[in-house]
């Protein structure tokens, strides 16, 4: 199923999504990597984030004529945020996580509890992402955290394609691919053993 979600996204809308759905987001999203997660957990959200999407991303940003402009903004590896994402979601109920590579069991449980989906954005597609960002609304903690780690608040239009890879029903596409792989690896090893 393909659909466009407009922020603020409700809990019901998030719970309605399933693994395999392709979504686009219109409205407001914000970036947060390792340092920003820690900062928000310690100091609270610098602006209201309920119902928005958090984007695991360290963008390239340029200031032109006094205004910030996103140059390239693809996703970073989400697994690094696994250590605190469950606490983050309970404190800041965003409805969509955007990242790449997927996350672990603690986050999957938090997605079910809070009503959030994890969506995968194609790694490396930084130019395509930048094209869907119409404006940099704000930036928080830029001086302290630097360009990649700061919280960038972004206006987006049809940001995506985002594939739901972990949903609020306990499903994870990464588990499914992992199972396929463990079935295939034995065949691959047998092929190697038989080769010259």
């Amino acid at each position: 199923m393909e659909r466009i979600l407009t922020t603020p996204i409700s809990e019901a809308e998030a719970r309605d999504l399933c693994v395999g759905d392709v979504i686009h987001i219109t409205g407001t999203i914000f970036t947060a990597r390792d340092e920003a997660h820690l900062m928000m957990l310690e100091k609270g959200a610098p602006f209201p984030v309920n119902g928005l999407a958090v984007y695991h991303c360290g963008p390239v940003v340029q200031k032109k004529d006094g205004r910030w402009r996103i140059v390239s903004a693809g996703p970073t590896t989400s697994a690094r945020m696994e250590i605190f994402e469950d606490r983050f979601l309970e404190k800041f109920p965003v409805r969509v996580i955007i990242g790449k590579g997927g996350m672990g069991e603690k986050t999957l449980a938090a997605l079910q509890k809070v009503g959030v989906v994890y969506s995968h954005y194609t790694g490396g597609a930084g130019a395509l992402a930048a094209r869907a960002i119409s404006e940099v609304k704000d930036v928080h903690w830029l001086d302290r955290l630097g360009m990649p780690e700061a919280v960038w608040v972004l206006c987006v239009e049809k940001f995506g394609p985002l594939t739901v890879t972990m949903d609020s029903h306990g499903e994870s596409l990464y588990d499914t691919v992992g199972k396929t792989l463990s079935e295939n690896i034995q065949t691959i090893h047998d092929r190697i053993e038989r080769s010259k």
Partner: protein
Amino acid sequence: MRDERLVEQLVAAIRTAETILPEDVLVALKEASAIESGVARVQLEAMLKNADAARDGSIPMCQDTGIQTFIVCVGSKFPELSSLKGSIIEAVRRATNEVPLRPNAVHPFTGENTGDNVGEHIPYISWEIVDGDSCVIDLLPKGGGSENCAALGMLPPGVGINGVKRFIVDHVVGCAGKPCPPGIVGVGIGGGADLSLKLGKLSLLRPVGSRHPEGNIAALEEELRDLINASGIGPMGLGGKTTCLDVHVEYAHRHPASLPVGIVYQCWSDRRARVTIDANGKIEVT
């Protein structure tokens, strides 16, 4: 020392590498897209759209613009040898502002970012002196996500070539979606620990689809590519038939007691450019 004209052309080459995906990679991604469906195809189509957006807007394809890497092959009679290093470093500084590039040179102990992609031993410049009077500089900006999936195996020689295959396949498959597949797996076999990894990295300069000139090595490349693609990991690790676009293998003779295998992964955003300078100072960027 630096040569202003060369600096300008090197900045242009960095821009080319960062913003234009080489034709061989585009073709390979399109072929992969044609045989995939569902989520896998969504990923490949996004990659192709991203390549268009980057080229049309002259903006970096990926926000991780990488560690700037230069493989220099310079003729022993090339007249402008003394200005090469200074020109490369200055070009990286300028490209950081002009392309722009993300500042990616961080002090390993203090965490301080130099801000201009220049630091201790960075940009990475590899030098080779060859016969002749011209110079070829290959650019291979390399992102962190894929570089983190490099590996070195100091295998016992007794495992033989099948042991080598298993080490490579198990490692690449174990990385799953982390290095932004489908990319190019560069493999160096033999030499020593450092040389095997270096050969793996140098093999990434070859276009996707190019085969090693020796038939048995060429066959090994195709076999490894097919084995990795039988894993089902697929584009971005979300399942599918295309886990790598190609495997390139280079080799060196080895010590009798050693069988080093170096693996260097390049993500699908396989950024490359080349600067050629002849003895009369004519510079060409491709």
